[in-house]
């Protein structure tokens, strides 16, 4: 099938190389024997219902969750043997907002900057650039907990790229935010990708898939399809990603996918 050929990338060395990656929780297989590659500078989308295995896959690639089987190379390091090396080279934004709500914007920036080994000067400079870019001058001394969710998400994204990681994992970054903020958020992602960053993003908003260079549709721990959005729509004879998603989930289940969140 032509779709399978898209699993590997031509040209430069892939930033992420996944081989037979599997994660099981007891009898439940959250991620089932996945293999794919992601090229430098790509925006790679992971689409799927809740419980399809998107978050589990991302957590494994970040070194937060140990794979049950398989191997992967992330940012030039072996996931199984060098997970701590990978952590220096990646940025991660969790599904759940996880900066410190009882610290101010600036304190969060300094803290995470410091943890990533930025000098005080570098952390302050990077923070100022980021605050300027987001137009947060007036809010930099406010506790993050007091800001609206949309702002929090933008700050979380900016903190995730503070140390210029090159590879960024975004786990449902836009869930729960209003459409305007979602659009602004995607502008930030596209702009960052334009500067050479590789971005892996999960979402269950099908329209967001259109922003991605390539999309993997996950159904019950498997990748049901993987290609650029245009190719996928052409191949499956559908008008948009929404229809494609319905078609793929029905094909596999004969019904709607069950919602299982590990």
């Amino acid at each position: 099938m032509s779709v399978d050929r898209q699993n590997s990338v031509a040209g430069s060395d892939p930033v992420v190389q996944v081989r037979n990656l599997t994660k099981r929780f007891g009898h439940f297989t959250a991620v089932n024997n996945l293999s794919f590659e992601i090229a430098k500078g790509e925006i790679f989308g992971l689409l799927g219902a809740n419980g399809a295995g998107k978050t589990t896959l991302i957590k494994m690639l970040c070194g937060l969750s140990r794979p049950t089987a398989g191997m992967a190379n992330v940012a030039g390091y072996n996931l199984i043997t060098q997970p701590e090396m990978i952590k220096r080279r990646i940025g991660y934004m969790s599904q759940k907002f996880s900066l410190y709500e009882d610290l101010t914007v600036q304190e969060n920036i300094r803290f995470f900057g410091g943890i990533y080994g930025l000098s005080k000067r570098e952390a302050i400079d990077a923070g100022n650039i980021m605050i300027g870019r987001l137009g947060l001058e007036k809010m930099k001394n406010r506790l993050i907990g007091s800001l609206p969710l949309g702002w929090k998400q933008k700050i979380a994204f900016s903190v995730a790229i503070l140390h210029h990681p090159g590879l960024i994992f975004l786990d449902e970054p836009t869930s729960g935010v209003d459409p305007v903020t979602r659009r602004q958020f995607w502008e930030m992602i596209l702009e960052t990708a334009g500067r050479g960053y590789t971005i892996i993003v999960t979402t269950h908003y099908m329209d967001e898939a259109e922003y991605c260079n390539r999309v993997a549709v996950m159904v019950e721990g498997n990748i049901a399809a993987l290609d650029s959005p245009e190719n996928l729509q052409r191949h499956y004879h559908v008008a948009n990603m929404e229809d494609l998603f319905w078609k793929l989930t029905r094909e596999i289940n004969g019904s709607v996918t069950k919602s299982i969140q590990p």
Partner: protein
Amino acid sequence: MRTILIIIRKEFKQIFRNRMMLPIIFIAPIVEMLVLVYAATMEVKHIDLLVVDSDQSVYSRQLISKLAGLKMYHVSVIPVAGREADARLLGNKADAVLEIPPKFEQSLVRGLNPVLQLRLDAVNGMAAGIINGYTRRIVMDFQRKWQMNFTATDTHGKIMRISVVPRYWYNSELNYKHYMLPGILVILVTIMGMFLSAINLVREKEIGTIEQINVTPIRRYHFIPGKLIPFWIIALGELAFGLTIGWILFRVPVRGSLLLLFGFTSVYLLSVMGIGLFLATIARTQQQLMFMFFFFMLTFLLMSGLFTPVESMPAWAQMVNRINPFAYFMRVIRMILLKGSGFRDILPEFTSISVYAVIMFSLAVWRYRKTT
């Protein structure tokens, strides 16, 4: 090293931004000391004594007035035994009933030994024993004085008895507060160190911020000390604060070296905080952690010798106490404060607690997982 400092700074900011923290650190010790030191006392200060005076003689009234003249006794008298006395014991209206039999005076004068009966509410056996002791001493004293008066002219007939005069060392007034206060300090310092640091770590798990930490290249031997040191400093400050309050309120003596006390406490804190953080790496929620703490706190505390002497516990309990850090601290803080023991005297405890600290701290670092 810089990473540890960065974490410590962040923790201090969060601690002092938490509205509950300052009251916990400064109000709780004062209240605990005021309430616990008084409430945990074993002294019997107020005795409701019912005297059944079936004799109604001069001597029996003398004995009653002797008892009534003492501050700790609240004496009421009824003439005949019967339901009344039992009812008062049952209704907690009397702690003890002293029955003076008919012909008490007569027997005394004739040189027979009259028998008084003392019935005690022994639900609290310890208190009953103390009331028994007090009351007997007073009755015997009464008898002795009576004998001396009666036989004053006949000095040859007086029986000289050998008497033992006790001297209470280190706590000559048998001041129970001075004994309890160091124990309360142990609880305070332990709760501050062990609870707060462990709860802090589990809270990060609950809120999810731990994930953002775990995805950074932070090392666990940076992270655990970073979590521990702020509360270590707070707990040592708490000891200083508690000692000051204890000195102001109760004049608790400080006979040994404060430097030695703080030195021992620093090491002790590492061991209990190690236990706390180790449990925190196992617990997923604050609730789970609290239940584990209740178990350890209650067991360790009751066995530590806070209320009852460790030496009176069965051999197996004393063996268990070897792994009870509270017991070491309980013993050492009393030795240093009340007896003025020096470094040589506490060396065995110091050695044990140091080994303990190293083991627990390593366990906590080892058990902390950045990957699930």
